[in-house]
């Protein structure tokens, strides 16, 4: 126990440093604007900042946009990456290793890097300023293919062979054998995806130009530009509002979240 003394202290100090910015944001959001600059211990509490922020910009609409956007990306990536990953993991076809190597290249070149050209493509498709326009460049994912391929490869070959002998079609094998066995990977991958796209900013900023389409991050950034005097309380209230759904979801499911990572890893 004594051994833990110093290390625990260090760990907790680090933890405090990590939580401090959030604690401050909360403090600032529940106090009237006038007291943010003084940190009076007995400043009155208020929830008005949240109401004010909520009323100033269509955060609700943006939240819905983000949810729809994340759902599109999540569904499309699962549907597109699963068969590809399976083929790379378990089927023999000419050019497989070469194609897989090509796919891995995309791990390095994130869609944001190509935003100038992708903007032109989305423009040619007449999808500028639409949720599909935001989502399209992210639908094919080397990360997803790679991750699922790893998971599928851990399924014992004998099980697969047995399933084949029983006369299961390829689709049935995928559905009944591979998907269930790769579940932790799907969860971990899905969570990373959700958090990435909920938080994605630069590409949506470039491709959207109306209030109705903005995802929550762009809305928040537009909300907080400080061309005029800065109202910290309202900005932090808006900041907390727009991150709340994901943070609450994370707090509720954090155990499963971490565990699915571990199980995905164990595969």
């Amino acid at each position: 126990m004594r051994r833990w003394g110093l290390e625990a202290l260090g760990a907790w100090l680090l933890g405090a440093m990590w939580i401090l910015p959030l604690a401050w944001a909360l403090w600032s959001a529940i106090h009237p604007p006038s007291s943010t600059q003084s940190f009076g211990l007995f400043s009155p509490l208020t929830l008005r900042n949240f109401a004010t922020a909520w009323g100033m910009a269509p955060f609700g609409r943006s939240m819905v946009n983000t949810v729809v956007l994340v759902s599109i990306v999540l569904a499309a990536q699962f549907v597109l990456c699963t068969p590809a990953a399976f083929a790379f993991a378990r089927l023999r076809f000419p050019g497989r290793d070469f194609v897989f190597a090509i796919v891995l290249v995309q791990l390095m070149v994130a869609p944001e890097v190509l935003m100038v050209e992708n903007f032109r493509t989305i423009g040619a498709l007449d999808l500028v300023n639409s949720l599909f326009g935001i989502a399209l460049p992210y639908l094919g994912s080397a990360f997803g293919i790679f991750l699922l391929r790893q998971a599928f490869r851990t399924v014992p070959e004998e099980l697969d062979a047995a399933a084949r002998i029983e006369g299961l079609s390829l689709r049935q094998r995928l559905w009944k054998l591979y998907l269930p066995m790769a579940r932790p990977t799907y969860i971990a991958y899905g969570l990373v995806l959700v958090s990435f796209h909920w938080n994605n900013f630069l590409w949506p900023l470039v491709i959207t130009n109306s209030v109705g389409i903005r995802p929550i991050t762009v809305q928040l950034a537009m909300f907080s530009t400080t061309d005029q005097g800065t109202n910290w309380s309202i900005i932090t209230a808006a900041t907390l509002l727009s991150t709340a759904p994901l943070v609450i979801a994370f707090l509720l499911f954090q155990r499963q979240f971490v565990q699915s990572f571990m199980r995905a890893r164990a595969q």
Partner: protein
Amino acid sequence: MKLTRRSMLAGATTLAAPAVARAATLDISFFFPIAASGPITKIINGYAQDFAKERPDVRIKPVYAGSYDDTIAKAITAFKGGHAPPLAMLGAIQVYTLIDLGAIVPFDEVATSAEDKAWMNSFFPAFLANGNVDGHTWSIPFQRSTAVLYWNKAAFKEVGLDPEKPPASWEEQTAMAKKLVRKSGSETTRWGIQIPGTGGTYWLYQGLAIEAGQQLMNKNGTEAYFNKPGSVAALDYWVGLSRQGVQAPGVIDWGVTPNDFIAGRTAMMWTTTGNLTFVRDGAKFPFGVAMLPADKQRGTPTGGANFHIFKTATQAEREASLAFVKWVTSPERAAAWSIATGYVATRPDAWATDVMKKYVAGFPQAQVARDQLPYALPELSTHANQQVTLPLNSALQAALARSKTPKAALDEAQAIADRVLGPYKRG
């Protein structure tokens, strides 16, 4: 399927029957350069609603697009993507860029009646100046400002300065700022003055340059004058304020400066008249607003944003946009806007309205910006505007952050401007 503006419009124009036209309202999305956390969004939304009462067939949909830089980037990106809004409030300085892109129509092509012509001439010439190119009126001024000096009268009194007498010259300004600095140990708790260096860094700098006798560009927007002696002297003075310890070192944040002023962390500040309302609502001490002090002369750039109508707008959209612009720039509304925000009412007759007279009588600070207009020159505006001004911003920041001397920094900015503007000069 989503109903696009265009398809709704097609519906509205082909079916001319009034009953149908009333059912199909025309949506005019309208880019507006303001952070949505500001109180101004409420005012603009209010205008959109009030206008709908007069023109139920038109619905103005404001899109708050952030800073001036963000908004012009958005507008051009939207235009290139084929989704330009019919109407946008954009920095008055973007006129060349927008013309070069073929993105906007001049107002004189949309507003053609004799009454319209008179309306276009009813604005302060200083505010029309940026938008007058090649004999056309490309934009109508609305959210306009000039740079002014705010001073904390309580702080002046405290250090024995006359609280009613702001600095009139650069030397006076420096001298007063020196007296106003307050220290606690080695730490400065109140600066004498703050001239912020983020946001449009070049803007307040242009005020200094004009005062030093140097406008930053020619009338055609094809030449920049960043390293003339006056331009360098202006930056020397600005950097010198920090060097002499009367202004915080480094690049001071534009958005935080009014907070600093309200909190008493700086006794004077330069900023836009557009912050007047924020300061009036927040300051717990008497404060004054003055014209910028003079070096060789008084001077300020005009600032802010004008209405622009995009070329891609259909006839009906142009007509509706014009109707809204005329409605919102009427003398009464221009006065109300000015009172609510601190921006300068852009036409003389707005200042003659009863509300405005009453307001100015009780709050004379509001009048300073107008009185300063005779000294105001057009804001820095060139072809390929962002490519010229953003590097200038960097150069100015480099000097403020002491990583380059003013002269060296401005030489670099000049070289970039020459390279970018080269083709336009010949063309």
